């Protein structure tokens, strides 16, 4: 069964360092998302991406964040200068785009720990 894959599964970094989280969405999906979950809190929307551009972003997704789909298969989230409060589980998700199928398929997540 096709799945969304994410790397790395866990990354530890120093505050102020750049981090890139990678995702390979399901191959025929058209819409891509990043969500995050801070420990003990809800899953929060960060950004959606369609047709090689950002469709929507939350207030969390400030200038420190960027997304890219560099080669038609990978979908990356970059955090330019990490802060302690960026420590969270980051989930990539994708969706087909077919009408009436709003469910997102999530990867297993990348745990980011900022020290």
């Amino acid at each position, binding site marked *: 069964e096709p799945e*969304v894959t994410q790397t790395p599964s866990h990354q530890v970094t120093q505050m102020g360092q750049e981090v890139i989280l990678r995702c390979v969405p399901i191959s025929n999906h058209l*819409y891509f998302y990043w969500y995050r979950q801070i420990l003990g809190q*809800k*899953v929060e929307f960060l950004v959606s991406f369609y047709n090689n551009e950002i469709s929507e972003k939350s207030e969390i997704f400030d200038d420190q964040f960027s997304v890219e789909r560099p080669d038609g298969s990978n979908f990356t989230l970059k955090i330019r200068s990490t802060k302690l409060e960026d420590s969270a589980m980051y989930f990539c998700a994708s969706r087909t785009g077919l009408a*009436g199928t*709003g*469910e997102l398929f*999530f990867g297993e997540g990348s745990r980011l720990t900022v020290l």
Partner: protein
Amino acid sequence: DQQVKQNSPSLSVQEGRISILNCDYTNSMFDYFLWYKKYPAEGPTFLISISSIKDKNEDGRFTVFLNKSAKHLSLHIVPSQPGDSAVYFCAASKETGANSKLTFGKGITLSVRP
């Protein structure tokens, strides 16, 4: 701004009994609702969904009920099994088109006792 609320953080039920997980929402623009199940160290897994044009959707042991006037939905699991023990997230979206981002609740931890 909690647009999707899961007010009970946890629920414990006996194996074989019914589990009822509740969810409330405040945004009347939401028209598509989903339940996700999440195990520790894994991503959320889609379970079942319901469109606002329906009031019930059933898939095996899982049934979701939607009460639009009360802005309330619930997930029924019957019979509950120990493998159902997980965190269950209610989610909602405004449309199933281009920008159908999901807004999640905080989740309910379900424990099914053998």
